[in-house]
């Protein structure tokens, strides 16, 4: 009995090796973009969440069960980001290749230094992420860590294409390094400046470019803005001369507009998922590029 599982797994691995391409399922479009950069045409890629969708609140639709059932590889953000919907899907997917610890199960948070790991778990503080802030791909340096992890895992699963993966990894890393230098230069004049956001999902971006993105329209994580709290934010923004409010596509833009109106700030549409905002469909690097440029354009304005 105990030999059946490994034998079956081997048979499954052999059969998947016989097929030309690895079937990769990524939970969110940012991971998918990096997977495509590394895997190129050696992988079939499917993404579960839409780029305009809130990654915490994706519906665990039955069609995702089929996608996971057919997958050779699952790439997830990890750090509890998909805890509200992915486990239920995996329970029904009947795919041993995606079992916890299997080579096909890639938690992209592995190897990433997570920030804001709470010392105590208390829902009175709102719905905080217990493993730390999971929006780590907002920092391009972490994109390299994730790319490396993805490349290593893909090499294990498809050794014949290892050279391609390695080559793509170097290319990706080099491009990030070059672009990052440019982006840091673009945002260098604004180091230490304060920005307002809806939800605390831009921490890593702020850390990378030395911007303070820690004024939030939501009073606590997961709690919608209240008029009283917005009043306080507006006061703070005026006191600190904050002229930029960033908002993701799945958040209430009207609230951001109200705050902007009352403070003379500009609302900037940003996204952490390629395709979430017009001009970012090209992939992770194009998305970062646009975000950096839009922020620079906004920060330079006078109130």
């Amino acid at each position, binding site marked *: 009995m105990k030999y059946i599982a490994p034998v079956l797994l081997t048979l499954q691995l052999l059969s998947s090796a016989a097929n030309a391409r690895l079937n990769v399922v990524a939970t969110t479009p940012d991971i998918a973009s990096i997977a495509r950069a590394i895997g190129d045409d050696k992988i079939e890629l499917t993404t579960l969440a839409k780029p305009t969708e809130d990654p915490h609140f994706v519906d665990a639709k039955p069609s995702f069960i*089929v996608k996971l059932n057919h997958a050779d590889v699952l790439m997830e953000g990890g750090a509890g980001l998909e805890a509200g919907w992915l486990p239920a899907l995996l329970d029904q997917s*009947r795919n041993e290749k995606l079992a916890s610890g299997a080579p096909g199960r890639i938690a992209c948070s592995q190897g990433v230094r997570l920030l804001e790991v709470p010392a105590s778990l208390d829902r009175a503080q709102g719905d905080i992420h217990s493993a730390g802030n999971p929006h780590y791909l907002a920092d391009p340096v972490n994109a390299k860590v994730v790319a490396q992890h993805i490349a290593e895992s893909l090499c294990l699963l498809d050794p014949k294409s290892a050279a391609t993966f390695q080559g793509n990894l170097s290319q990706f890393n080099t491009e990030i390094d070059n672009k990052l230098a440019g982006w840091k230069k673009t945002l260098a004049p604004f180091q230490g400046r304060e920005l307002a956001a809806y939800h605390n999902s831009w921490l890593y971006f702020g850390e990378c470019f030395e911007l303070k993105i820690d004024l939030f329209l939501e009073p606590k994580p*997961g709690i919608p803005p209240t008029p009283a709290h917005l009043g306080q934010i507006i006061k703070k923004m005026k006191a600190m001369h904050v002229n930029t409010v960033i908002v993701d596509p799945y958040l209430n833009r009207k609230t951001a507009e109200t705050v902007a109106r009352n403070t003379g700030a500009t609302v900037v549409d940003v996204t952490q998922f390629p395709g979430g905002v017009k001009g970012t469909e090209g992939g992770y690097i194009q998305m970062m590029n646009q975000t950096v440029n839009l922020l620079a354009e906004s920060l330079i304005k006078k109130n």
Partner: protein
Amino acid sequence: MKLKLILGLSSALSLIGTPIQAEETNEVAQLKQMLLQMQEKFEQNQSEQRQQLESLRRELAALQSNQVTNDNPVTGASSNTAAQLEPSPPSSRTLLPATNSLSAPLTLVRSDSAYMNISFDVLIAAGGSTAADPAGQLELGDHDPSNNGFSLRNAEIAIDGAVDPYFKGYGNIVYKLDQNNETGAELEEAYLVSTALPDNLQLKAGQFFAAFGRQNSQHPHQWSFVDQPIILNRTLGPDGLRNVGAQLSWLAPTPFYTEAYLGVFNGQGGTAFSFRNEGKDVDGVPRVHGRETLDRTLRGPGDLLMAPRITSSFELTDEQTLVAGASAAFGPNDTGTGKRTEIYGVDLYWKWKPANANAGFPFVSWQTEANYQRFQAAANLTNAPAGYASLPAETLEDWGIYSQVLWGFRERWTAGLRGEYANGNKGSYDPSDIYRNERTRLSPMLAFFPSEFSKVRLQCNYDHGTLFGNQFSVWLQLEFMLGAHGAHKF
């Protein structure tokens, strides 16, 4: 390692110290040069590493002091002006582990890193009805509000976790308080599910809800309304159709989701309501639909309850999903030898959610279930209930439907409307049978979710039935959930 190299080199030097003076001088000088260079490099590496360590230490110290001065865990604002404008709650962002104290409670369970999820979910109801005893004829579900005033009919401990690489385990223990504040406890579910069977199969075994329709396998805190639909109550029973058994399910190789189930259960007891259920009549005598029941044990495989189901899901558009299913349940009932019950059901669920929904809002969903039951009731010639000389053998047919629309019109708010109709063919015991006769109900509902872990729901019931005429009830429901609870199925 460098030391070894140096030692090796020194011994090498001593070995080659013997040849001709001139060559020796050259070689010795060269080797001495190499040694010096290596020593320099070694020391350089050491100092570089020392510098790295220092900078990391400085970074850590800076971060730690930063955390301590941060007053507000949400905004993390560190400027003085910000701190003055807002009173600050205690920080929860320290990197140092919290020491145990009365003000910092022990973390018993931590999600993402525990062997099992454990949660505690409580439903509290308050309200009233024009009916003097709502639980008598209107609210017949076991977890429905049970009386005018306050009631608590569902305090559920839900446990789930990975048993090992082959199985996942689930448990559901439900406590409820009756009108006299006596606690009833139910082992509602306790089962394991396989995770590693071949051929897209999955096995479930233990005590669990049969996969019949959509709502039967959901726990009350998942329901969109305060009470159980009439037709589900009449066919699947006040407790839902659940029993000890096993279920094999198969994910079919269709491009869209299709799953087929076959459940096999003992089919005995109140939770197998229309099957081998002893029942209890108003006068405390074991009867079902007025027929005296023979509480017999399992005589063979033919006495088991079989529950097949097939369901498919389609993505109509990028934002609309449809789930359709058909279910059945077959088994003997206890009213007489050879008497059997058949239940058939169809279910439909449609949901629309825009691509940029904010925390899942807005959305619209529509759920409909229709059941049909054929119940072979034996004759009751010797011990008919009071007021009846005897009851003949007859096949009781019951049918009914409920349809509910939910509209999440803004973040944290849901409005809903449910309409129900249930009826059946004429039965001899009908005038006294609360589980038969024509009934309709219309229920408008408004719910507010302060967070994902609490809700407040207001529901009005417009009831009409042959046995009780028109009745009106208002129910307020409160829910809270503690702990880590696994995600629900779609």
